[in-house]
């Protein structure tokens, strides 16, 4: 059974999550991808305030399609996290508590998640029509000129996610594959 959790996530919740856990996340998220990350980190490096206070918040690597009339959100889903690797240690040190994306992270980023007690969630990629139903509202809060890459505040309900990196260093991209390959060696032994 997936666990229900709410964003912004408390320290306590972050610490109890383990890689491989399925969760349903509700609450507030902020989208940011390549171009927004470049601006956020430039501001941090120059000691300027960020246009949105992201401390303790959850960042979603996503650029949705435009919201059609009569809908709460366009299609939405995670983009490749690795492209944000150069920026992630800086944002985690600043105080971002959790990140949602897809795909493996670099060793330096994995260390940064542990060092900052932050959690990395994976969302199923390429299922954006399905995921749109979890989004209740979308509002641009910064960098409007970036179009789909602007920072948006999302209210979500029961967004299905998998814990990919936990605060203890567990990495489900490694563990999940190892688990499958192990079970494969034991014929007829796939857990139903």
């Amino acid at each position, binding site marked *: 059974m997936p666990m229900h959790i709410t964003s912004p996530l408390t320290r306590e919740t972050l610490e109890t999550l383990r890689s491989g856990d399925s969760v349903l996340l509700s609450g507030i998220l902020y989208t940011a991808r390549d171009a927004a990350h470049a601006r956020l980190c430039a501001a941090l490096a120059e000691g300027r305030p960020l246009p949105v206070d992201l401390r303790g918040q959850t960042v979603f690597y996503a650029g949705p*399609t435009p*919201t059609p009339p009569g809908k709460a959100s366009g299609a939405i*889903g995670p983009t490749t996290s690795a492209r944000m690797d150069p920026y992630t240690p800086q944002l985690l040190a600043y105080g971002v508590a959790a990140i949602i994306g897809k795909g*493996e992270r670099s060793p330096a980023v994995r260390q940064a998640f542990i060092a900052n007690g932050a959690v990395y969630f994976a969302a199923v990629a*390429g299922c954006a*029509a399905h995921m749109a139903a979890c989004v209740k509202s979308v509002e641009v809060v910064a960098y409007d000129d970036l*179009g789909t890459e602007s920072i948006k505040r999302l209210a979500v309900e029961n967004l299905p996610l998998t814990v990919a990196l936990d605060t203890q260093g567990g990495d*489900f991209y490694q563990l999940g*594959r*190892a688990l499958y390959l192990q079970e494969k060696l034991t014929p007829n032994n796939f857990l139903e």
Partner: protein
Amino acid sequence: MAKLRTLSSEAIAACVSRLCIQACTVLPGTVCRLIDEAQRTEPYPPARGVLELMQQNAAIAAEEHVPICQDTGMVVVFADVGQDVHIVGDTLENAVNIGVARGYTQGYLRKSVVADPLRRGNTGDNTPAVLHVRLVAGDHLTLTVSPKGFGSENMSRLAMLTPADGVEGAKAFVLETVQLAGANPCPPIMLGIGLGGTFEQVALLAKQALVDMREGAHPDPYYASLENEWRNAINALGIGPQGFGGLATALSVRIKAAPTHIAGLPMAVNVGCHVTRHASETL
């Protein structure tokens, strides 16, 4: 002299606009069937669950006319122009870009194109498209619109192998590409593989192989068996749907080969995701 058939650039623009929306919202039947087959044969329950979600997602997208994936891609257009067609009004290139801008605006699709690779800057209407024109016999124009997501495009690779590398070297390069890609290209993936030609031709061969939606085996038995062998080798890696383990790492491997130089064995691997889309129409 054959009689020329006149085709207005507006008809081309309208067609491209339609195809952009269709491609982004309706997954091709071939891809749906490959996902269904992967779901049936996937032995690992968590992986099967992910494949079921992908099936549901494609169904919702088609039914509600919403994009299958939020990355509605950079548009690649293949135009097979009959040499007895006379296009009037605007140029073919302008017609295609007008169609892309219209489709992406009216269809509420994502604008994901920047004007310059280094200086960036979103163009605001998803233009320009990448246009590949081929002159063919007849008086028809066939347009294939293939919006390409970059989660998978970024994982594509090209190598100038040598004749001594041979088929084993080629296979090793494919497996290395898939390993390096991991979960990034949204597995289960589809691979378009180009072999032969020159540096620029091999990349195009790989793209054509990816867009080729043939059902069944490669017409050349040698390549049919290679496609099979390479797919099985990829699916033994354990990456699985979403990269969390499983059998279904690749839905399909398609090869397109062309003559090459005595000194060369160019190879390109164009990685496609489980949302490898396209739509075609003949005018």
